[in-house]
């Protein structure tokens, strides 16, 4: 029977930790079945293991591991990470967003249109003197304000 544990890691090193742990698991034939690094959980990974002992042996000596979170995580708690919603589904027209990648990185913008099928949104930059619609991938923005303004 699997048990789930949360492990704290250095931010943005989740994948490195998961890969190093996989190597340790294979080398020592440990009872660790999977390692999950969801995008939404910065600085943490979820380890599916037979028990705490296997987990502790798998993280022993692995860099960027900061510790194990006390207690266990239930499968229901991590189930939603396995079927993630498209980013566009969580954004609505009128939301204020910050663009986090591309040439407009760091700019604030107001959402004017959402295309869930393409996972794209059309925004207007707040700083621009003349409002020009810009279409960006919904994953490339961060929601700042959920107030839905009149569009």
């Amino acid at each position, binding site marked *: 029977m699997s048990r789930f544990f949360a492990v704290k890691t250095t931010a943005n090193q989740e994948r490195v930790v998961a890969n190093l742990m996989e190597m340790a*698991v294979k080398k020592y034939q440990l009872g660790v079945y*999977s390692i999950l690094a969801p995008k939404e959980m910065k600085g943490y990974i979820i380890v599916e293991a037979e028990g705490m002992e296997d987990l502790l042996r798998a993280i022993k000596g692995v860099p960027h591991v900061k510790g194990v979170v006390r207690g266990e995580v239930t499968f229901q708690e991590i189930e939603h990470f*396995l079927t993630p919603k498209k980013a566009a589904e969580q954004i609505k027209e009128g939301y204020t967003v910050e663009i986090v990648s591309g040439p407009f990185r760091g700019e604030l913008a107001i959402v004017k249109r959402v295309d869930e099928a393409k996972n794209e949104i059309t925004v207007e930059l707040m700083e621009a003197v003349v409002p020009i619609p810009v279409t960006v991938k919904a994953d490339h923005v961060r929601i700042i304000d959920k107030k839905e303004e009149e569009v």
Partner: protein
Amino acid sequence: MTELACRKCKYINMDATICRVCGSSELTKEWYGYIVIVDPEKSQIAQKLGVKYPGKYALRVG
């Protein structure tokens, strides 16, 4: 070294043109979330995702 996820099975391939698991040529650089499946038979997560081969997978593609 580019990590490309398969649009069909979500397996992450290293510098490949076809997927090592399902043989699909629909690979993409755009993927999010990361999961390492070590033992697909015993893993509850692997069963939920329908993964049968061990390896690295993306949680969402495209």
